[in-house]
């Protein structure tokens, strides 16, 4: 197999051809500024309106509740800071988890430095929060609960509906970072009692640099980027029409084929998990065995370090990711794996293979085959493995 095998779809996805095809006209003839009243502007405005409508419908929202942003990180920052500042007269307490994406964690930490209190909920060994912990964390100063829909590293899916209900019952805003969930899970914001939801197109075969924030009607939230009257006066900046059209097309495709997509991914995922853990000793699946994203495989490969694993995989044209500190430029390995109770050493050696629509069974076989050799080679080099062999 001499083509590239891409198994890092949780980091970003290849864009679908249909998506690019839908975008191109808005880069060429339909380039107008949607705020303008002449033909080119109206065409762009129409595309924007129709896109908003389609996105809304897919999420069970109305068009007036969808705001386009520059991606997941902006959506998270806006939702959290915008909602907290707008509601600070009601309280200054936020509840989140220890396994959020950095866009949420660092936004919360920023607010901590600016007068807010944040509770970071623990998770269990599967990356699941405890609903009672959430209930106990609520105080009369709690104004926002922000808990991710599905985790980007280990794929664990939180009980969003229950969380939404608790938030609603306590009159607290509920934001969910659904960046990994959108395109993989059917979501109805109404049914799930979600007030704010972040999504990002490049996670579901759309372009990078475009996302959306769902803001339930009536939610008090400040704009985050001030300026022109775009996005109903809530998010300034000339609209990125081509990318909005791309996001929408990608979202439509994802939900048209959701069952097919999920069945295929789950089959490949379970095969991958099975084949790896069966054929390689000292491996352990991270994340929830059932409540996990259809394409997520996260396995600790004890006694070896993640970055050298990734480099070795890259040498045989396999693209994957790891919770190793060495790949993130930070000192500590994945905060998610640590929160789930993994030791630093084991967390450094975790491997994430995230499957997507373009992966095949043949590729899964190729990955497993190569992984067996690579792990053996790296372990042979590892001083940590010496003693293990002796123990065995």
């Amino acid at each position: 197999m001499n083509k590239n095998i891409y198994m890092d779809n949780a980091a970003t996805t290849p864009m679908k051809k249909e998506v690019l095809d839908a975008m191109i006209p808005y880069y060429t003839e339909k380039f107008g500024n949607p705020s303008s009243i002449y033909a080119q502007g109206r065409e762009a405005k129409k595309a924007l309106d129709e896109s908003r409508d389609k996105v809304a419908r897919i999420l069970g929202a109305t068009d007036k509740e969808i705001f386009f942003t520059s991606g997941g990180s902006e959506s998270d920052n806006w939702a959290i800071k915008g909602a907290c500042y707008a509601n600070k007269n009601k309280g200054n307490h936020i509840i989140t988890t220890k396994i959020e994406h950095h866009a949420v964690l660092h936004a919360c930490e920023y607010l901590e430095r600016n007068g807010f209190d944040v509770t970071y909920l623990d998770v269990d060994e599967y990356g699941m929060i405890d609903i009672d912990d959430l209930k106990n964390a609520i105080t009369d100063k709690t104004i926002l609960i922000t808990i991710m829909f599905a985790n980007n590293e280990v794929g664990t899916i939180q009980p969003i509906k229950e969380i939404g209900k608790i938030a609603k019952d306590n009159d607290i805003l509920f934001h969910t970072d659904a960046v990994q969930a959108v395109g993989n899970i059917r979501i109805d914001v109404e049914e799930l009692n979600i007030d704010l939801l972040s999504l990002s197109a490049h996670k579901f075969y759309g372009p990078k640099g475009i996302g959306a924030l769902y803001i339930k009607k009536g939610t008090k939230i400040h704009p985050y980027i001030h300026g022109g009257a775009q996005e109903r006066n809530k998010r300034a900046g000339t609209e990125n029409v081509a990318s909005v059209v791309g996001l929408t097309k990608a979202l439509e495709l994802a939900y048209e084929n959701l069952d097919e997509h999920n069945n295929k991914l789950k089959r490949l995922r379970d095969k991958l998990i099975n084949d790896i853990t069966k054929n390689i000793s000292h491996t352990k699946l991270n994340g929830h065995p059932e409540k996990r994203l259809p394409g997520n495989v996260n396995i600790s490969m004890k006694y070896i370090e993640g970055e050298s694993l990734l480099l070795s995989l890259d040498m045989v044209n396999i693209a994957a990711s790891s919770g190793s500190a060495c790949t993130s430029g930070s000192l500590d390995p994945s905060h998610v794996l640590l929160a789930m109770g993994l030791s630093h050493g084991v967390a450094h050696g975790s491997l994430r293979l995230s499957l997507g629509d373009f992966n095949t069974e043949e590729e899964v076989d190729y990955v497993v085959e190569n992984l067996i050799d690579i792990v053996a080679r790296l372990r042979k080099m590892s001083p940590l493995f010496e003693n293990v062999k002796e123990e065995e």
Partner: protein
Amino acid sequence: MYTEKVMEHFRNPRNVGEIEDADGVGEVGNAKCGDIMKIYLKIENGIIKDVKFKTFGCGSAIASSSMATELIKGKSIEEAMELTNKAVAEALDGLPAVKMHCSVLAEQAVKSALLDYSKKNNIVIEGLEDFNPDEDHHH
């Protein structure tokens, strides 16, 4: 992000393994930080006759170990003592800033193995008087 030289040493690391009856063994780093290097020395008449390493760590940790062993193999103890992390990094055509600590680790692994040798043979190696690898190692 890595130079071709780093990748070459990562792909084909020199001197991987153990020396059963090593004259000196040094291990630095820890699993918590994500890198451990272990160096085995075979020393005859003050000359490093053989050297092997084992490393748990990232690409640059493995390449640095490999390069460090290459640089000291066949050299005298004094020459090996002159090995600096900078020399290791330079021999690899450079390391990313965030990875410089790997070359530090390699230097320390060598010194640590030499220290072990000096202790076992009850000799003094100039420059190792105050060496304490556990204390020095940090990212």
